[in-house]
């Protein structure tokens, strides 16, 4: 049975059908890509899977459990971590606080611990702090851990988002354009981080990308989306040579 299964999911904004009968199956440990031109509905699919929108039709099943329509924080706690396309960091918080906060659902000391600063809390927070620094080392920004995120350059902010998502220990990681706005050097580093994370933590990864090079390099399977429909699905080679994909990206040659 696949780790994440989406069956015939559709979503409408008013009368506009943003996602139409979308199907997906991701096996544990797989890296999958989702590509498509602007406005194709890629981010909407992420928002549907993570519960920010509720699908009009269809089912989402994670690890045998139906998660359709649950609140986002419950879905996240079941094991879906994500990053955001346009950096949604908490602007007054430091880097290490971001990573620690994503452990929220696993904090075991409760309100008594929070109000009275019990020993149990101090021990747990120390453990979480250590784990946070390990993750920050993995993405290469541990030296910035006490900086407020708004002081960081763009590429490092993306790494914070990555570390924050990993801190939830997700079963599947959803990356929404992890290399958007990066220069070539940062791009290579980010791809290296994604590979490393996948190798060391072994979770499944589902990523949206604009740059074909990134998906072609990283993913085993790719879906192409246009106007809410999946128009092609296959290995990078198959996708690269599929005429429908080329049409969607470059436009059809005019006959006039």
């Amino acid at each position: 049975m696949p780790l994440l299964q989406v069956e015939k999911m559709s979503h409408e904004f008013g009368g506009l059908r943003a996602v139409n009968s979308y199907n997906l199956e991701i096996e544990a440990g797989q890296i999958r890509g989702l590509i498509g031109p602007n406005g194709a509905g890629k981010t909407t699919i992420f928002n549907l899977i993570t519960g920010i929108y509720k699908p009009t039709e269809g089912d989402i099943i994670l690890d045998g459990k139906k998660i359709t329509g649950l609140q986002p924080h419950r879905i996240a706690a079941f094991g879906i971590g994500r990053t955001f396309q346009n950096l949604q960091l908490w602007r007054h918080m430091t880097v290490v606080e971001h990573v620690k906060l994503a452990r929220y659902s696993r904090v075991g000391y409760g309100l008594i611990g929070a109000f009275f600063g019990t020993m149990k809390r101090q021990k747990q927070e120390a453990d979480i702090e250590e784990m946070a620094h390990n993750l920050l080392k993995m993405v290469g920004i541990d030296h910035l851990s006490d900086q407020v995120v708004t002081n960081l350059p763009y590429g490092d902010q993306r790494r914070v988002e990555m570390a924050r998502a990993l801190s939830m220990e997700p079963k599947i990681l959803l990356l929404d354009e992890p290399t958007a706005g990066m220069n070539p050097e940062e791009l290579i580093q980010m791809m290296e981080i994604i590979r490393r994370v996948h190798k060391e933590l072994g979770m499944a990864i589902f990523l949206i990308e604009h740059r074909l090079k990134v998906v072609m390099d990283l993913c085993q399977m790719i879906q192409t989306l246009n106007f809410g429909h999946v128009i092609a699905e296959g290995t990078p080679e198959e996708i690269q040579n599929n005429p429908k994909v080329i049409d969607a990206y470059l436009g059809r040659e005019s006959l006039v």
Partner: protein
Amino acid sequence: MLSRRIWDSFFRVPLLGWLIGILIAVMLEHLLGDSLVDVLGLSKIPALFGFVIILKNPILMPGATLYVLLIYIIPVSAVARISSWPANKLAARLLDFPIWFSVVIHLGLFYAALHMWSEISAYRLLTLKLTLIAIMVTLSLNVVNGYMGEFSCSHPGFMALGAYAASVVTVVLFVNDRLFGPALLAPAFGPFIFPVALVTGGMVAALGALAIAIPSFRTRGDYLAIISLAFMFIIKSMIENLEVVGGPRGLSSQPDYANLPIVFFWTIACIWMTNNFVRSILGKALNAVRDDEMAANAMTVNTRRTKIIAFLFAAFWAGVAGGLFAHVLRYVNPATFGLQKLAEVLAMVYFGGLNSVYGSIVGAVSLSLLGEALRPLEIFKWIIIPLLLILVMIYRPTGLVAFKELNVRNLVKPKQ
């Protein structure tokens, strides 16, 4: 060059040194205050650092200034500077023990200084108690308006609930009262039951908060501001119409349980608990909700639960503060908990600084003292204080000491 070095040397004085300095200055006032007043031609010991005297009678300005200089500024700085080296050694030694030990010693010194300072006059004592209560109210409102970034207007309502609930408990149990009949328990139990009465006040306020929280935390936006404002007026008019507790005439004859040590204790408890809360992961979730609620939700934070907990927590402490307030004044009436109180508390929060325990303390203390010190100016007081607020809003939009974490270990550690 030399002045620069002297100035810098004061930054190496640990908190312990300053506290010893303050304590000695206050002792000096006890010993020499009255005779110095005679020499300087003042009528009595200046209650609030001479401001009131200067504003009432500007001719006495040199005398009052000299008094403050001789009794406070010179002794405090001299003792702090001289004791700097031994105080640093002592502070370092204290840190060999568990942290609470050092904290208790610092608080003990601080309390001793406050106690002696307030013994000089009843006016000082009252001002001090009300200032401590203002700290509690400001800090609890800061949890909602600062840390969580919502805008709540219901704090006077919570104070009223706490004040009335706590008063009813103590008056019913320990006072032969016109409204509630003879006392039910011997007065000897009073001081032991008083904490229970305060916690009851806090709980009632938290219950009231639940009524606001359930409808208004489904989404973000201005709902909370409007609903909480309405709540404040509802509570006020509800009490005005409750003849059982005296209606608009108010409720009086609360027993005299709120002495300085009790008020001090509860204020410290409030600061300690709030600081624990906002520094925990559960408390940091408030900041996450404020800065980006969608991201917080996607990172497993149960945002609705987080908001409700913080709101009830804030209401609880406002209720406790209200209970103390009623027992300090030994009289409450519903008119106290209206728009003016709201403006006062909001001003303290935004003046002192959002998202900061230090900020709430600074805001509450400075505006309470300023309010008292400028009292002789009468109507002009209400021009000067708002003007100050506007200036702060222009030059430091988030308040004087915003976004600064209170780290107790850093506070009590040696500076050398």
